């Protein structure tokens, strides 16, 4: 182990990137779907698939921020519900209301994320419990707001993002607005996670908070910001979902676990330190593709839950196994 530096080959800074298995998985699943249902290969087929997955994909990318920072956010589903219910209550069928409702909802999301983050960082409540508590609270608020049965519906201006398709696009025929949202928000979240100082600090804080603190990372602030990002993406996902699916009182329930499952399929490290936004989005695609396959196979809705549970446990067990084999 002499320290005399050998003349290094120029290749030293580049390592062949290992392909994340999630991408292979997505391709395989989509091929399987096309085999079973050739119409899926048509632009309308896959564009509608992407439109359906957009909300979950954006949500997963946001949830990844909290996972990379070392926590969980189980309140996102209830934020989606609150967004949809709240918007429908406020809109009272006025198409012009959308312009102030969306900023207002983002503001509410910001406050919720802030509260989550502060409770976890300063009151030291484990994030799982803090955000579960937030989930109960917000579901209660949504019920309160709607009086138990949602009245009114969302104006078309609001549903634009989730429902509208641009038609007659060359090559692909239709282009749903939701897909554009997915690309724009996905790219933004990718940029935030992988191209900014904030993203690197997020990784460091989740990897080893003590070391990060001693290296000067403002760990508390970084973690709080992660919860804020997660809550904001939940609002965006809620807007898209509400546009596509309309108003119901439990519209967002279950999304929190789907988002975590998607991130885990994408190779995110639970309890922090590693995760990729494109892989989390791919994880969401894979999850939705699996659900689509189950549908094509004629399996009922509840089977989804079983499969999702198995995937969640399996993906984490697989990651543990791989890490152990790599010798830590």
């Amino acid at each position, binding site marked *: 182990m002499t320290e005399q530096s050998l003349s290094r080959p120029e290749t030293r800074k580049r390592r062949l990137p290992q392909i994340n298995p999630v991408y292979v998985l997505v391709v395989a699943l989509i091929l399987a779907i096309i085999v079973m249902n050739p119409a899926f290969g048509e632009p309308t087929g896959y564009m509608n698939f992407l439109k359906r997955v957009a909300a979950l994909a954006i949500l997963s990318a946001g949830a990844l921020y909290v996972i990379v920072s*070392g*926590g*969980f956010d189980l309140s996102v589903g209830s934020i989606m519900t609150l967004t949809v219910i709240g918007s429908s209550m406020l809109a009272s069928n006025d198409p012009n209301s959308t312009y102030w409702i969306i900023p207002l909802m983002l503001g509410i999301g910001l406050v919720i994320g802030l509260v989550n983050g502060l*409770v*976890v*960082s*300063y*009151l*030291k*409540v*484990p*994030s*799982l*419990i*803090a955000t*579960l*508590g*937030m*989930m*109960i*609270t*917000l*579901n*209660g*608020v949504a*019920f*309160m707001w709607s009086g*138990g049965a949602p009245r009114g519906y969302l104006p078309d201006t609001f549903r634009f993002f989730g429902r509208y398709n641009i038609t007659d696009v060359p090559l692909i025929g239709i282009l749903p607005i939701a897909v554009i949202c997915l690309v724009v928000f996905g790219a933004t979240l990718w940029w935030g996670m992988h191209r900014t100082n904030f993203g690197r600090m997020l990784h460091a804080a989740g990897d080893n*908070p*003590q070391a990060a603190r001693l290296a000067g990372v403002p*760990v508390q602030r970084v973690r709080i910001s992660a919860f804020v990002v997660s809550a904001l993406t939940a609002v965006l996902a809620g807007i898209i979902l509400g546009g596509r699916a309309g108003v119901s009182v439990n519209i967002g329930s279950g999304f929190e*676990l789907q988002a*975590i499952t998607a991130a*885990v399929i994408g190779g995110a490290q*639970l*309890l*922090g330190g590693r995760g990729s936004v494109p892989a989390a989005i791919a994880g969401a695609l894979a999850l939705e593709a699996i659900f689509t396959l189950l549908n094509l196979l004629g399996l*009922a*809705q*509840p*089977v*989804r*839950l*079983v*499969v*999702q*549970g*198995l995937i*969640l*446990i399996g993906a*984490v*067990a697989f990651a*543990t*196994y791989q890490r*152990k084999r790599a010798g830590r």
Partner: protein
Amino acid sequence: MTEISQNRAPRRFRFERHASTLLLLAAIALYVILLLALGQVRFLTLDNLVAILGRSITLGITAIGQTFAILVASIDLSVASVISAAAVVTSVMMNGDPAMMVPAIAAVLALGAAIGLVNGLVITKLEVNPLIATLGMSLIIQGVLSYYYNNFAGNVPVEFQIFAYGAWGIVPYSLLFMFALAGLAWFVLRFTRFGSDIYSVGGNKDAARLAGIKTARVVIGAHVICSLCAAIAGIYLASRLRSGAPWIGAEGVYDLESIAVVVIGGTVLAGGRGGIWGTMAGVIIFSLIDSIFNVAGVDAFVKQVLRGIIIVAAVAFYAARSQRPVA
């Protein structure tokens, strides 16, 4: 940094150890003051006290099991689904036939034990984070359950409703049962080697392993007990509702509430410290809060909002004192 930690003062008053008692007294005082202030003295009776306690049987039984999981430094988020599954299976198997009571109960207990076993094995052998393992299990149970049922299914015979509605004097059997179960749990934790091992493994897994304790078995055992208790809670709920539906566990938020009452009872989430009586105090505190809401006429949805806040506040009450950052 070890040199700093050693400078802690010995024999200071340890707030955490008495906090659950203090909280219980505070909740009682608040309740009494509220009743006096509202002039509702008619509620200050033994009957009403029993009624208050009687409303928390499901939570109480579940929390007894959750105490085991948390003491061993694990956690179980699948209890709500287990409750639903147990209630549905009980009601469907009995289907009004008193002769099926024993087989149904046996089957449900076996189901609970099996779920706990799988949880424990996934956590210890596959080394999956207990939160994720039990969340995943919860999804699986919920999925299987809703595949077959989407509403109340079957019904329990009148004879079986005695479990929930029968009473010895003014005290319901179910309340006696819950305290008997708590007593049994206390006995196991206090007087058996398994109980002692639970504290050791939860307190310091490495030290326990060095002392020759088979830590995996202890964790699995705790999860089996936890799921068994949830199954019993489901049986009780079927008896009370006269039938079972696949959403009743989730509706009661028994996963989060059971964790919250365990923590309020002074059992630390990191494991190794706490006990059953603290948990029971936590259950009573929650019942009292519920009654306070009822007396004060709080709207059902507002109640849910306040519950979420109270749960988080309760955990924060203990957690904020710790110096360690949490995930």
